[in-house]
Structure formats: C-alpha cells, structure tokens
C-alpha cells in the first residue's frame, strides 16, 4: 500500500534536516503505529506525505499503491486515497461543515472520474455516518471545527475519513487532548473502518491509544529515522520503560 524509501526532508526556512532516511512499508489492510519522543519527526512525516508547504524532500520516495506521492498536489494525494487526520484540526469560520464535506467528497469523486453524489444521497450518507460517531445535526451545520471541543474536532476528522473512504489513513496524535471516553469513541470509529483494502498509520506518544486500535506492527522513531520495529509488545515496552532504553540500545 505505502512504501517509503530513504526519505530525507528538511525544513525549507531553517535549512534543518528533520527526516534522515525513513524506510517504511505498510501492506494492504495492515495497521502500523509509529511512536517516538517529541521532535523525532513523526508529525513531519505525516505532513510531508500529505503535501504540506514548507518542507523540502532532498532524497527518497513515497509510493502509494505504486504511485509517487511526493510529486502530487495535496488534493491529488487525497484523490489517490491518502487521508491525514490532523493533530490540530483547522477551524474555518464561514465555511459550513456540511458544505465542506460535500465539496470534498464530490471533488474526489470527480477527480477519480466518478459521478458526483446528489444532495439527497449525500445527506443520507453523512447522517448515517455521523450517527455512529455521535455527531449531531447541529455540529454538521456549524462552520468547520469552529467552537468544537477537542473531542468533537477529532470525531469530525474521523467522520471525514468515513465519508472519503481513503485507502491509506494517517492518524497524527489523534489521542491528544482526548479523555478516555472520547478516545474510545474515536477508536471505535477507526476500527469500524478497518478492512482488508485499507491501511492505517497511527502516530502516537502513548500506548493507551493502541489498546483500542490494535496495531500489527510498531515502529519507534527517533532523530528522523525508524530505529526499531516490532510487534505490539514494543509499545508495551515503551510504556513500561520509556524511550531511553531503546535509544540507548540502538545507540
């Protein structure tokens, strides 16, 4: 599904290397987690994959189902099946959540040469998906993320994911700022979307999210590289001993 090879990235403005050779391969239907200390480059990786300005790829590649992501505009990456759930979902005053969702869904369908959803079909679909995430009609009417609580913002991200039906989902610290109940709700939303044709990359500081979204593979990232890869037990090890042991061991 996703194949990242020797990815080197620097911050454009500061001429500072953030990623120093990331290699990562995620198979179809797999759930991978990336853990790592602050500043290890986890969020940068997600932004670079999604196509945010301000980063320069100096080396390497990232293929989504064989297609080079790094050459595409952000909207093309989305149409190709990539989705990034933001750590800090953006508030957009003046743009209704519903308008936003419909524009996004139809833009992607159009880009893929599919027919656009009618207003009626769209409404039916969004209501159905919103219900399972406990998103009420009022939230759909409000401007995008404006006045939403932390939990509402994250649920709104998952709603977008459910509507857009991406093949490769990246969750950037989706657990940050959530209480236990909110986290469970979000995790249930994600788990409902797990399927053989859809892969996930879950970026998190903490093991607790991984209790709810069980990963197949866990990677530890530090100083812009993936330094260790293992099964779910690796996350438990981090939880118990912190990153210091692993960092020391890899040296």
């Amino acid at each position, binding site marked *: 599904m996703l194949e990242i090879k020797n990815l080197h990235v620097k911050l454009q403005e500061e001429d500072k290397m953030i990623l120093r050779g990331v290699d990562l391969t995620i198979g179809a239907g797999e759930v991978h987690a990336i853990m790592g200390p602050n500043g290890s480059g986890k969020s940068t990786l997600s932004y670079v994959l999604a196509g945010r300005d301000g980063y320069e790829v100096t080396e390497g590649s990232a293929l989504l189902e064989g297609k080079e992501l790094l050459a595409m505009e952000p909207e093309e990456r989305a149409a190709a099946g990539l989705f990034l759930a*933001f750590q800090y979902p953006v508030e957009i005053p003046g743009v209704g959540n519903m308008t936003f969702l419909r*524009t996004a869904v139809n833009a992607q369908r159009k880009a893929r040469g599919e027919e656009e959803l009618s207003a009626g079909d769209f409404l039916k679909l969004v209501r159905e998906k919103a219900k399972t995430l406990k998103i009420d009609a009022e939230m759909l009417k409000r401007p995008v993320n404006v006045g939403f609580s932390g939990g509402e913002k994250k649920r709104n991200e998952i709603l977008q994911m459910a509507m857009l039906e991406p093949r490769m989902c990246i969750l950037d610290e989706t657990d940050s700022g959530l209480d236990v109940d909110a986290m469970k709700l979000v995790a249930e939303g994600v788990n409902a979307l797990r399927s053989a044709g859809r892969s996930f990359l879950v970026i998190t500081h903490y093991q607790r999210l991984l209790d709810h979204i069980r990963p197949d593979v866990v990677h530890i990232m530090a100083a812009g590289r993936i330094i260790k890869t293992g099964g779910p037990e690796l996350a438990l090890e981090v939880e118990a001993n912190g990153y210091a042991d692993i960092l020391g061991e890899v040296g």
Partner: protein
Amino acid sequence: MALPKAKEDALAARLAGFPGLSGKGWLATARAEASARLTATGLPARRDEYWRYTDPASLNAPETPVAHRFDASDEAVPFDGLDRVKIVFVDGVFDPVASDDLVVAGVSIERLAEAGAKDIHWAQGMYGALEARGQSPVARPFAALNTAHATDGVLIHVTGKAAKPISLVYVHESEVSDAILHHCVKLDPGAELTLLENGPAAARFNKVIEIDIAEDARFHHIRLQGRDHERRAVTHIFARLGARSEMRSFTLTANGRLTRNEAVIELVGDEGRAHVAGAAVGDGEFHHDDTVFVTHAGKACESRQVFKKVLMNGATGVFQGKILVKPGAQKTDGYQISQSLLLDEDSQFLAKPELEIYADDVKCSHGSTSGAIDDTALFYLQSRGVPRRTAQGLLVLAFLAEAIDEIADEAIAEDIRARLERWLARHGSRR
C-alpha cells in the same frame, strides 16, 4: 473664501460642456443652489484630505475617459427571476421602450424632467436637500455637481407597501458616455420599498440617490455595479431615517477601473436602524473606494457598516468610514468593520476608520484588517481533496459572508454568492 485659481480653472473646464442653468420653477432653483455649492468648493483634488486615497483626476477630466463595453452575457441577467418593475437607462437616458409601465401599487414614479415642469410637486424641498445637508462637515463636490447638472432620474414616492421591487437598470452603450442621474425616494410613514440597481451605466457615471425614510418605513437597497472593466463611477447615497425606520443597503462591485461609493446616512428619529454593506472583488486595474458617514442624532439607533474587499494583481481598495454620535444620541449602537483579503503582495488596502462620539452612554466598535488567505486552512481543504482554486474560492466566500449576510432577501443573497463563486473561478492571482 475664493477658490484657488487651479480649482477654479478645473471646475470651469469640467462644466464647459454642460448647458447653462436657466429657467424657472422649483427644480431650476434647486439646481442653481447646488451650482452655488459646487462653485464654493470646486472639484476635489488629490490634495484634499477626503480624496487622499483616491485620485479624482479621471472623474474631473473635461473629456470622458474611454470605457469599452464589456460582454457580460456569460452570466444570467441580475434579478431576472424577480417580479419587478424595470426602469431602464441607456448611457444615463431613460429608455421608455425597454422599461416597464411605471405603475406599482403603493408607489408613484415620475421622471425628473416631468416633475420639474410642474409648479407644485412633493419633491420640491427634497431634491438636493439631503445632498446639501451632506455637504457638511465634509464637502462632496461630485454630489453638488450631480444635483446641478443631472440629465435624468426618477422620483419615487412610496405611500404604502410597494407591491413589487423597483429595479433600476443601467445600460452602458457608448464608449465615451458621461451620465449624471439623480433619483429621489420618499417613503411615507410605514411604507416599504425594495430598490434594485444593476449595470455599469456609462463610461463615466455620476449618480446620487436621496432617500427620505419616514417613521416606521423600511427601505431595502441592493446594487450590482456591473462588470465593465474600464468604467468609472462616483455615486452618493444620502439617506435620512425617521423614528423606528429601517434601511438596508448592499452593494456588489466586481471590476471597474474606478469606483467611489459614498453613503451619507443620518439617523434622525429614535430607534432607527441603518445597515450599509458592500462586497467588492477586483483583479488588476481596479480601484474601489467606500466612503461612509453615519450620523447618530436620534436615541437608541443602530448602525452597521460592513465592507469586505478581495483584491488581486495590483488592485486597490479604500475604506473611509465614520460614525458620528451627536450630543444626546444616547444608547447608540454603532458597528463598523472593513476588511480586505489580499491575494498577493501587489494589491493594497487603505483604510481610515473613524469614531466621533459626543454622548456618554453609547456602544460603538470598529475594526479594520487586511490579510492573506489562511495557508493552514487552504492546506486542510486541499488535504481533503478540494482543488486549490476551489478551496481558495470557499475561503474567499467565507471572508465575504458577513457582508453578504446583510442582504435581507435570501434568494438574492444566494444568487450573489453564486455570481461571486463564478467570478472567483475566472480570476486568480498571477503570483
């Protein structure tokens, strides 16, 4: 005080082409008085404080600068679906064939020239009166010129609830037309009227509307200034509001080399409400100036000024807005916001918001901002698959929303949103 020689000469040159003012009757008297006001002030010059941000040279020029007609047939005709009474002016001249019969229940409509021939008329004492009041504390020479030399116009007397909107349609034909129109609207107590205006009017257009809104009357005004790239316009709205009356005015401006829209609004009675709003979008050679002066004289009145501009490829926006709260105008609620969205570094926005308050129990706020598109929001939308242009369009419309929300009629607001959306799809910063 005598005018400086340069101003005297400029005025003489500008007026050289006009027929002299003569004749008798109330209209001739009003014109002569306006002419005297104009002679006292002269035409504006860049050095005048009120014209610091907008160069009036092309409005003063004796010869009309050429403005080619613009083919706007790629868009539906504005207000086409509305049941309205159309009054058409071609290059500033009333066109009886293209116009509807000037008959609406609750309203009487007359051409200025016909009314002027009558000995006694309701517009006597109104024509030029609000314009004259509006000359202080700031001179508005183009308005005085208009009153003195208007070539046409309509006088609208609303006695009840107008059965239909009145729609003034301004057609631009000649590349060098220089049109001066003066309209008066008088609303009796409790009367209601929606006035629509659209079209570029002329190569150079000078228009004044005087609106006298009696107590409990309601006046709604929606104006679309046409899309001719090269036209120039200077317009004035002078309005006086009685107790508990309401005025809502919205203007959409897309394109136009030079536009100066002045609104001079006086809340005279208690508990009146005046909202004046504008959305302007400009690409390239576009200079748009909103100059607004709202006076609160009555108690517990509310006023709102909401002006938004989207500028790209070297376009310029200007806002000069003032709220004057007179002594005794307690419980005034005044609000003013002027904002611009600059889509590149070649464009500029110049703003001069002012408050002058002589009462102690008032609520007045004003704000002015100028900024670029929010990159984070743009990326967020793109990351969901929305193409960059569409995403920009969504954000620009969101920026304009507060002004468009001032339109009372939701169908018209929706139509204007759609027009803006299409305009934005056709235009973009070259940077």
